[in-house]
């Protein structure tokens, strides 16, 4: 039994409370994230100066010209980062440049890049304005630049580093300009900056609250040195700091020229009016949607260390011009696993759905989300607290994206005014290899393959989804030239872009397909790979209107062989695929392994194979409505197997010519429909048989069960072992999972004792 000692409570008198408050106000140990700033995604109220500027009169054509000039300047800065950036992320477009109002609202974002940042960077700017502007030891001066990466102060995740600089006229801050790049390496417990293995916030690497690193145009060498000593890739840290500073300074040069032309007042009015216009337009667009509620639940199957099921609940309600997104029912934070996300990161991915998939025509402003109310319970995995590790926060925040992207098909279907097509779910996982170690050039590095940018798209009602088209967070990202990468890192993608048969969301229109990749390192004293993906037991994305979702994705490895030796001896054996390698096991002496896709830094010896596949986009509509000729074409191209063509799409065809047998197909489909009517049960009867009062006994389940969002179910591990509890989030105990190696050792020890007992062996052990 666990003893419980309750802390005695004492009511304070009014006077005592005042003393406590005064003491707390005057005694600041350190400044953490500001709750008031971090919980709000609303635009700031108009400042007095903005009022004056707008009162001076608005010329809409002039404002439009200013917006276009800003867009041009931001795109120029973006291209500088992309062309000169040292980080792999920069080279593929995983970055953004933006201009902000004085109070930090994003007014305009570069046309390319990651839209999610339009919901996030007001947090650090508000922090700088609140805490550093009037702080005598800091202050804000012309030419100053602030760096930041800690998601708890407002960021997508900690791999992204920002350079934020003020535009100052007549001693007043009138705007901000920033560039943010996915830098990758940040000194976390594993190379690459987004560790699946982090178990405390201290494992997450650099945790930069916003601080000044550029003073009046000069990069501070002491702070730069500190940062370089804190990461595995000091060259990258230096190079990209300079790139960001250069890009921001170029944008500021363009903006300053613009201000000289139009005047400060017109410029400030243009920024503010843009933000307000977008907010007003969003309210109008919400009003055009039907009133009602759309609910979408997702279940993630991994902490990236062990398989569990954790829920991401989402209910979107529209009433008039008001929209509410309610995340209650979402599973609790797990305090020693990396999958937790701060709410601001989840909101940033909401914004990604809103501005890339709902209303892609709108200027990318903070205000695109500010009219939407978001309800969330603190200390859930999608709204994690300060003490939760967040190395792989994308696990929760990408579910935030899917929650709004997938719900949109239902929310907007009956609205005649659409700004984007009806669309099935986009793939939402980071199916790529992270890597780290010592390169062939002797440099220590840590980063990732661009193949996460090969996420397949969802199907539309009238066309199949695109194969490996773009990541959910960046429409124009590149998957990069692997040959260029191979000049810098000591591994090859032996198989790089080979589509995996049947890997699509089936439907009337099929979701885009994903490809497989097989990597192996060589010629390095130390190298290792990591993977940071869930969805090996429970599909990560689902279908739309009768379509199916993605399959699940294993990590496959062959250890204990050197494939390069084999291929040098006999090049004809260079015919690799996951299916072939794992099923035929062609390399003698190899250990053939599968696991879920949460792999912590795994030392890769020369020539050992690491294999994975990209996911698939969601299918749209009933598979039996798919054009039989499209099925036969997919079969001919070997995109689908014969089994799928016949059993799922119910198409008969000639296996030699791939011509559709029209009558045979009609018969197969009639039979398939008849079978549905026979096996389908009336809803009430089905629910009675299928639904259980709680999750299966041995499943580690976290979140609400059904629609009861006020109570969460969780398995907690205490002194007596695993125990299931159901309680409101505030009453749940802290959730921590045991070390899986300890569990494995305990299991093996029990087995040893069982065998000793069985064979009558008496072993004396000391503890």
């Amino acid at each position, binding site marked *: 039994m666990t003893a419980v000692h309750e802390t005695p409570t004492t009511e304070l008198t009014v006077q005592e409370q005042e003393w406590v408050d005064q003491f707390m106000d005057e005694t600041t140990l350190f400044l953490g994230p500001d709750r008031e700033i971090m919980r709000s995604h609303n635009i700031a109220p108009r400042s007095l100066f903005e009022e004056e500027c707008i009162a001076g009169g608005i010329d809409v054509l002039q404002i439009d010209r200013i917006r276009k000039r800003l867009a041009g300047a931001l795109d120029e800065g973006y291209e500088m980062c992309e062309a000169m950036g040292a980080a792999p992320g920069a080279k593929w477009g995983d970055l953004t440049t933006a201009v902000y109002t004085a109070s930090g609202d994003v007014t305009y974002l570069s046309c390319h890049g990651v839209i999610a940042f339009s919901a996030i960077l007001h947090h650090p700017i508000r922090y700088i304005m609140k805490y550093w502007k009037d702080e005598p030891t800091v202050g804000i001066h012309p030419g100053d630049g602030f760096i930041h990466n800690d998601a708890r102060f407002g960021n997508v995740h900690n791999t992204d580093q920002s350079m934020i600089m003020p535009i100052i006229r007549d001693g007043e801050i009138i705007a901000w300009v920033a560039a943010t790049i996915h830098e990758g390496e940040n000194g976390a417990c594993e190379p690459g900056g987004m560790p699946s293995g982090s178990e405390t916030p201290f494992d997450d690497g650099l945790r930069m609250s916003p601080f000044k690193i550029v003073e009046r145009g000069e990069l501070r060498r002491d702070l730069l040195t500190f940062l370089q000593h804190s990461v595995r890739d000091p060259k990258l840290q230096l190079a990209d700091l300079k790139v960001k500073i250069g890009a921001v300074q170029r944008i500021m040069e363009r903006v300053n020229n613009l201000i000289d032309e139009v005047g400060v007042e017109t410029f400030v009015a243009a920024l503010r009016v843009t933000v307000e216009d977008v907010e007003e337009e969003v309210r109008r667009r919400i009003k055009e949607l*039907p*009133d009602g509620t*759309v*609910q979408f639940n997702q*279940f993630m199957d991994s902490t990236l260390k062990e398989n569990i*099921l954790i829920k991401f609940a989402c209910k979107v309600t529209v*009433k008039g011009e008001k929209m509410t997104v309610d995340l209650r029912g979402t599973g609790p934070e797990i305090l020693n696993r990396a999958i937790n996300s701060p709410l601001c990161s989840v909101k940033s991915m909401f914004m990604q759905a809103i501005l890339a998939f709902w209303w892609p025509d709108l200027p990318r402003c903070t205000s695109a989300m500010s009219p939407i109310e978001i309800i969330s319970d603190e200390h859930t995995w999608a709204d994690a607290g300060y003490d939760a590790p967040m190395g792989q926060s994308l696990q929760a925040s990408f579910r935030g994206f899917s929650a709004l992207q997938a719900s949109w098909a239902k929310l907007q*279907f*009956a609205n*005649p005014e*659409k*700004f*984007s*097509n*009806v669309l099935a779910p986009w793939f939402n996982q980071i199916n790529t290899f992270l890597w780290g170690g010592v390169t062939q050039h002797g440099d220590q590095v840590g980063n990732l393959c661009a193949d996460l940018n090969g996420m397949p798209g969802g199907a*539309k*009602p*009238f*066309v199949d989804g695109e194969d490996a088209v773009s990541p959910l967070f960046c429409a124009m990202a590149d998957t990069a030239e692997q040959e260029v990468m191979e000049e810098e890192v000591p591994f090859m993608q032996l198989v790089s872009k080979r589509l*995996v048969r*049947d890997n699509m969301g089936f439907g009337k229109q099929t979701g885009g397909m994903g490809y497989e990749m097989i990597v192996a390192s060589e010629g390095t004293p130390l190298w290792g790979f990591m993977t940071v993906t869930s969805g*090996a*037991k*429970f*599909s990560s994305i*689902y279908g*739309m*209107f*009768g379509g*199916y979702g993605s*399959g*699940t994705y*294993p990590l496959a490895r062959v250890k204990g062989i050197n494939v390069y030796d084999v291929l040098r001896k006999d090049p004809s054996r260079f015919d690799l695929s*996951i*299916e072939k390698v*794992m099923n035929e096991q062609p390399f003698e002496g190899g250990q*053939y392994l*599968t*696991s879920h896709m949460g792999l912590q830094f795994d030392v890769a010896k020369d020539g050992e194979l690491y294999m994975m596949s990209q996911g698939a986009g969601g299918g749209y*509509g*009933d598979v*039996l*409505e798919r054009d039989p000729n499209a099925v036969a074409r997919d079969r001919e191209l070997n995109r689908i*197997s014969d089994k*799928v063509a016949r059993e799922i799409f119910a198409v008969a065809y000639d296996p030699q010519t791939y011509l559709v047998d029209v009558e045979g197909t009609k018969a197969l489909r009639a039979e398939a*429909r008849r079978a*549905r*009517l026979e096996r*389908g*049960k*009336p*809803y009430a009867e*089905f629910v009675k048989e*299928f*639904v*259980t009062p709680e*999750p*299966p006994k041995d*499943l580690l389940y976290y979140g609400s*069960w059904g629609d009861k969002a006020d109570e969460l179910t969780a398995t907690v591990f205490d002194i007596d072992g695993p125990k299931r509890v159901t309680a409101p989030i505030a009453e749940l105990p802290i959730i921590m999972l045991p070390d899986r190696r300890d569990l494995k050792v305990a299991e093996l020890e029990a087995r040893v004792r069982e065998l000793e007992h069985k064979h009558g062996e008496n072993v004396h052990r000391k503890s």
Partner: protein
Amino acid sequence: MTEYLFIDLDTERWVCRVCDHDLGDARGNYKEGTLVYDRDPREIHQPIIDPDKYEFTFSPDPGYCRILEFYCPGCATQIETEYVPPGHPPTVDMLWDIDALRAQWQARGTDPSTAITYGPGEDVRRHLHAAADTH
């Protein structure tokens, strides 16, 4: 309201767009009017690597994941699917305010059956023309 469902605002009923089958009160959950099947996910997402040798095979684990298939009882069209853990209640995915919906369409003064499209773009227009030519 979806690819396969419309709401008859006069009768306030959910109706199948393929066969006009009545699926129940439009103020409630359309799923209550459907037939449901608990599908083993391995039948849809079939293993690519050998399930006898490996735990992870490209197929979802049926102990974690089930696919609920919702069929129209009239024409057997699969109007929705849902991926859930075994025993998890089906989600009430849509509930609409019928009075507000009626007022909205009255204010628009247009016919929903012609006003609603799949959205902007050349592809949608081509699709609409192709559909019109077929019929």
